[in-house]
């Protein structure tokens, strides 16, 4: 690194990178994506990279990760995926419509159209933006543009591809769609990915997103997903994160729900470096229901921050949040959950809970549940606990002949079980239990040691 580049701040470097690569960014990309770049980059430059002085990023410092230099793949690279290697990575094998993305790009070898019910689109966002812009123009960036998170602006400035799922009116997608996001590079790599899910009225879709790293490089993964759930629709979006310790992942999910829609989400962080999950749900119609789940298992110096915001804008809606962290070694975690009940949102039910177990003296958890209620006829609750493993239960199991390590794993599984049993995709529940067990006995970590 030269002396001059050391003086440049990470934010400035991203700005100059944007300026240098403007041409490449716009090349081959739809005006729908390109027209948002400049203004978004300006917003990012103005805001800068948040640090501990920024209330919403108080417990997650991204400056160290952003100070590293990263390569970007601004044009699609046509590699071939070795599926055998991929499936060694503890990816849940389920009966799904499977597609891959590599470094943020929708993989050319995907054949999603086979087996999908008629009318459903599961494709590259870049491709759809170019060829069928009418499908996405009313949705793309409609929620993300309202965010003042600088990483969302950064995403909009750099995004060229991601996945797009469209389920037309009244169509039910029985099998889950499984999106496998692979990060693979021999050099440090920054990946920007933009996804969009549109479920029309009474449509049904289950989406399982699996985020994996295949190499041990440092990745900076910035992903934004917008979800539109129209009236009476039913949408599930679950994410499993299994990435190496050098990965920094910022995932922002924006969900807008209309009347009578049901939305289930879950963020399962099994292994990673530093993760920030932003989830914002806006209930824009009455009688909508949302469930937001999360399990984070951290050790070494890992960090997972779940930042959840649920806006009850309309009456008679229900939301449930249940997040649990299990922290070992020097790992840290944060949870912030804000429920906002608007003045007219009477008969709101909004519940939130965050339970955490510290397995070591040095692990730390910051939890901040928050209720802002402007209506008077509501049922809301929130609660948070940070505790240790139940020593009485541990002794009980050991006193029956179960070894200490196995007993601990059983208890941690039991702790996670409450969350897992709320997952709406049944076969995924079992897979998650297995993965958590593998995580607890070190098999998942071994997968990243090559």
């Amino acid at each position, binding site marked *: 690194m030269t002396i001059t580049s050391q003086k440049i701040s990470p934010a400035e470097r991203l700005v100059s990178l944007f300026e240098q690569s403007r041409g490449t960014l716009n090349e081959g990309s739809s005006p729908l994506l390109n027209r948002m770049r400049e203004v978004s980059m300006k917003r990012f430059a103005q805001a800068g990279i948040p640090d501990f002085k920024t209330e919403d990023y108080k417990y997650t410092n991204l400056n160290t990760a952003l100070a590293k230099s990263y390569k970007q793949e601004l044009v699609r690279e046509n590699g071939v995926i070795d599926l055998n290697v991929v499936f060694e990575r503890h990816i849940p094998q389920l009966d799904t419509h499977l597609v891959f993305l590599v470094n943020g790009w929708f993989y050319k070898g995907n054949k999603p159209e086979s087996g999908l019910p008629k009318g459903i689109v599961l494709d590259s966002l870049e491709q759809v933006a170019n060829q069928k812009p009418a499908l996405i123009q009313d949705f793309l960036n409609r929620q993300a543009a309202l965010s003042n998170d600088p990483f969302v602006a950064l995403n909009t400035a750099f995004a060229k591809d991601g996945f797009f799922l469209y389920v037309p009116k009244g169509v039910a997608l029985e099998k889950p769609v499984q999106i496998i996001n692979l990060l693979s590079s021999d050099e440090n790599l920054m990946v920007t990915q933009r996804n969009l899910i549109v479920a029309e009225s009474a449509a049904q879709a289950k989406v399982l997103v699996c985020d994996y790293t295949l190499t041990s490089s440092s990745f900076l993964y910035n992903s934004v997903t917008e979800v539109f759930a129209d009236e009476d629709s039913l949408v599930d979006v679950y994410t499993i994160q299994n990435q190496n310790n050098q990965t920094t992942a910022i995932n922002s999910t924006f969900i807008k729900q209309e009347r009578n829609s049901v939305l289930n989400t879950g963020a399962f962080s099994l292994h990673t470096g530093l993760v920030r999950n932003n989830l914002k749900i806006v209930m824009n119609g009455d009688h909508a229901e949302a469930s937001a789940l999360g399990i984070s298992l951290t050790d070494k110096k890992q960090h997972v921050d779940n930042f959840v915001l649920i806006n009850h804008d309309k009456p008679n809606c229900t939301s449930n949040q249940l997040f649990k962290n299990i922290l070992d070694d020097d790992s840290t975690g944060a949870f912030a959950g804000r429920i906002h009940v608007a003045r007219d949102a009477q008969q709101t039910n909004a519940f939130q809970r965050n339970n955490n177990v510290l397995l070591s003296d040095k692990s730390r958890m910051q939890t901040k549940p928050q209720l802002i209620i402007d209506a008077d006829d509501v049922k809301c609750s929130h609660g948070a606990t940070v505790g240790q493993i*139940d*020593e*009485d*239960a541990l*002794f*009980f*199991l*050991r*006193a*029956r*002949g*179960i*070894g*200490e390590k*196995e*007993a601990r794993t*059983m*208890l941690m*599984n*039991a*702790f*996670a*079980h*409450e969350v897992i049993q709320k997952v709406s995709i049944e076969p995924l529940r079992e897979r998650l239990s297995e993965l958590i067990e593998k995580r607890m006995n070190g098999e998942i970590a071994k997968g990243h040691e090559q």
Partner: protein
Amino acid sequence: MLSIKNLRASVEGKEILKGINLEIKAGEVHAIMGPNGSGKSTLANVLAGREDYEILSGEVTYMGQDLLELSPEDRSRSGLFLSFQYPVEIPGVPMVNFIKTAVNEHRKFKGLEPLTAGEFLKLMRAKKDMLHLDTELTNRSVNEGFSGGEKKKNEIFQMAMLEPKLAILDETDSGLDIDALRIVAEGVNALKTPENATIVVTHYQRLLDYIVPDFVHVLYKGRIVKSGGKELALELEEKGYDWIKNGEN
């Protein structure tokens, strides 16, 4: 089988056991009685390997081994069983997984193959029948939402599954209704062989009508202050503990 010599133990700096001496041979049943807070559960927990207690002095030999050197799991695998006075609820750990893991850990320790699913279910059914245990209970998480009596029955069910050499029953009778008491006692008696031994901690003669002790010991302020045959329990039932306490002062 078990030999306790001058055992002293403390918790949080407070000495609870102040020199316990006890000899138990195969085939024997010993009852331990004594007022609340005298240290009965502490003794049971120390024998099972609970780490909250500090051993100040003394030695415990179990089947030729230094018991205090063993981990709780190895004590269990070597045939020591504690039926807890207050069995803990463990939501999210299914009864079946738990007991299957325990049984197979015991088998592994003995160098035996794990039971097949079929063999395990057969064994479980037999033991459940013996104790008239409701099937619904084994479909739940360990003790979750069990009534007080159901928890105690569940302890004896686990004992039946693990077939210990030395069973310590800490107030297993409290919380049981009359029928359950009889069933549990019959279960304990059915598991008795000339090779194993039982320590029964209880406040009531009623249980001892069913599980007849060879010896009765009175634990008071961390010491065994009186030992006798089964008639000592009857005497205590009649007179209470005062005459012993006074005698000791």
